């Protein structure tokens, strides 16, 4: 009986809401006829629902519609793009970031134009690859002898020459 009661008690809200199958409905009805505990539970459930009616329906305030249309018009006014909103929100960091990116890009292109475009044709044309050294190393050949670049060229040239000489033997 206790097991049946548990099963029936679980179904009581759905039974009251007419959300059970006809078979379950008749099973619950039959059980309620003979079980005072389950009848009490059913009554308590109904009473708790009746108490919920204490929270009465409220009506919207008179200014509900005007307030909504005010907000809706704000939304419908000329659209501001996401980027523009970002600029408006963070003007200083955005300007700084844009300046940084432009500076890097500008510096790169200016450097490229000034260094590679001017030097590469003269040095490479004037100094064709010799001694088995890669042609691009020739661009370092103009470094003064006491500089790091000059030292590298000297070492590379000597070791290349020594290796070649060793190979010849």
């Amino acid at each position, binding site marked *: 009986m206790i097991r049946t009661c548990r099963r029936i008690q*679980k179904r*009581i*809200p*759905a039974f009251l*809401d007419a*959300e059970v199958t006809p078979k379950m409905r008749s099973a619950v009805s039959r059980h*309620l*006829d003979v079980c*005072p505990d*389950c*009848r*009490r*539970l*059913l*009554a*308590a*459930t109904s*009473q*708790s*629902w009746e*108490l*919920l009616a*204490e*929270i*009465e*329906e*409220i*009506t*919207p*305030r008179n200014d*509900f*519609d005007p*307030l*909504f249309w005010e*907000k*809706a018009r704000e*939304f419908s006014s000329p659209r501001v793009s996401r980027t523009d909103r970002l600029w408006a929100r963070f003007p200083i960091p955005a300007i700084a970031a844009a300046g940084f990116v432009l500076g890097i890009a500008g510096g790169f292109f200016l450097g490229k134009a000034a260094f590679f475009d001017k030097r590469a044709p003269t040095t490479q044309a004037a100094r064709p690859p010799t001694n088995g050294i890669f042609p691009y190393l020739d661009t370092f050949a103009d470094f003064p002898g006491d500089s790091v670049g000059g030292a590298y060229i000297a070492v590379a040239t000597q070791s290349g020459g020594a290796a070649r000489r060793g190979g010849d033997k």
Partner: protein
Amino acid sequence: MEKQADDPDDRLIREFISGQEEAFTEILGHYKSLVLNVAYRFLRDRTEAEDVAQDVFLKIYRSARTYEPKAKFSTWVYKITSNVCLNRLRDEKNAPKSVSNGRQDPADTGASLFVGSSPGHFSPSEELERNERLTVVHDALQRLPANQRLALVLKRYQGLSYREIAEILGCSPAAVDSLLQRANGKLRKFLEPYFADRGVSRKGPQS
């Protein structure tokens, strides 16, 4: 909730999408009370419920173009209302607590100030008693977990079927049944002392 071919709200939203703003005024008229009351019973606070209702209609206004008429328009409205209510509750939980942030008791706010209540028909002692009952019921509802409370509000106040609630909450009717079982069990437990105080008979119907 199957979509009905002649759903008048569906026609209204189509008219609104095609550029007739006045169609939205009609939608507002049809649904503002419904949205406001779901929010009020779920959140308890009238001011907050008004805010939620405004948010819900702004969302509908903004996303009307994305509305797919697969289900009834009212289901879509309930879905948005439920989401906004749940988000509001979540935001409130995450917000730092302040004295003014606490929910107001209906007794404190004066239930008779509510537009929906009927002031003037009760004596002061009756009014006090009524406010007390209102506080007890509000408290009981607020003690339920959010999803159970929402299911209960949709069932008890809006009279929706388990299937409709399932569609709104994005779960199965069996899950709604389970939510409501637990909600009703807790509600009964919370309100039982009140039955006793009020001298309400707990005997079942005589058969």
